[in-house]
């Protein structure tokens, strides 16, 4: 364990990426800079001088060999890659002279990002629904209500996420 680091757990839904970015920025302004991201919303921060780091998230499912030129492009543009968590990539760049840098500079590319998330969630939902019979009937004895409850919660959260992302896209297109 590195000195002067803290761990924080925080859950964000896929449509809350801008809230997440704002939270990471506020951490840096307090002198806690994102060091790494782990599975299931575990963030590690390192103590340092407070500064105005802007954090931006992209969603990309890459094959390993395709990732290098992707990261190179961001690095050339001055963005530091902190890590990735379930295909969400975390980048940061310092704000200079009050100018907030962006990785997405138009509405269409922001919408395209949410569409990539949507496609993933949609396939995930299809796969899970395809197995409903196994979940519903194959778990024996007294645990059946637990598996069924978890299953229903999972489907509900997937459907809810899909709806919220669609609303997010509609909102972006309206601006």
């Amino acid at each position, binding site marked *: 364990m590195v000195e002067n680091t803290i761990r924080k757990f925080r859950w964000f839904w896929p449509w809350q990426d801008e809230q997440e970015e704002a939270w990471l920025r506020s951490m840096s302004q307090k002198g806690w800079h994102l060091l790494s991201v782990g599975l299931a919303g575990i963030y590690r921060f390192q103590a340092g001088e407070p500064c105005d780091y802007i954090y*931006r998230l992209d969603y*990309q499912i890459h094959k390993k060999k395709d990732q290098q030129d992707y990261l*190179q492009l961001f690095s*050339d*543009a001055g963005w530091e890659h902190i890590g990735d968590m379930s295909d969400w990539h975390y980048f940061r760049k310092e704000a200079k002279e009050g100018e907030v840098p962006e*990785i997405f*500079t138009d509405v*269409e590319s922001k919408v395209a*990002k949410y569409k990539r998330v949507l496609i993933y969630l949609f396939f995930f939902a299809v796969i899970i629904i395809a197995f409903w019979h196994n979940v519903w009937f194959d778990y024996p004895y007294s645990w059946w209500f637990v598996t069924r409850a978890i299953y229903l919660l999972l489907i509900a959260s997937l459907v809810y996420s899909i709806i919220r992302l669609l609303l997010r896209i509609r909102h972006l297109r309206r601006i």
Partner: protein
Amino acid sequence: MVRDDTSKYLPLTESTYYIMLTLVEPLHGYAVMQKVEEISKGTVKVGPGTLYGAFTALEKEKLIVKVKEENRRKSYVLTPKGKRVLINQINRLEIMTRNGLSVKNLYD
């Protein structure tokens, strides 16, 4: 207006238009970003997320093609199909500009 296989790509977004304009010669990503900002006199900035998405989409549609990969940087250039799309977009913009100028003259 003549409709051909390029019409489904039109109109291009402002970013895509400028990205394609710079790709009349082979360039890698960062060079595209710099050149877009330069030739648009700072009115258009292309972030790396937007550019990566545009490269992926344009390559998939065979409007640009990878010509070189060096130090993890891919260089692209317009294909003949990409050039046709770009020319058609420029024609559209010419009409737009002429219409705009005739209105602007009324106000001058």
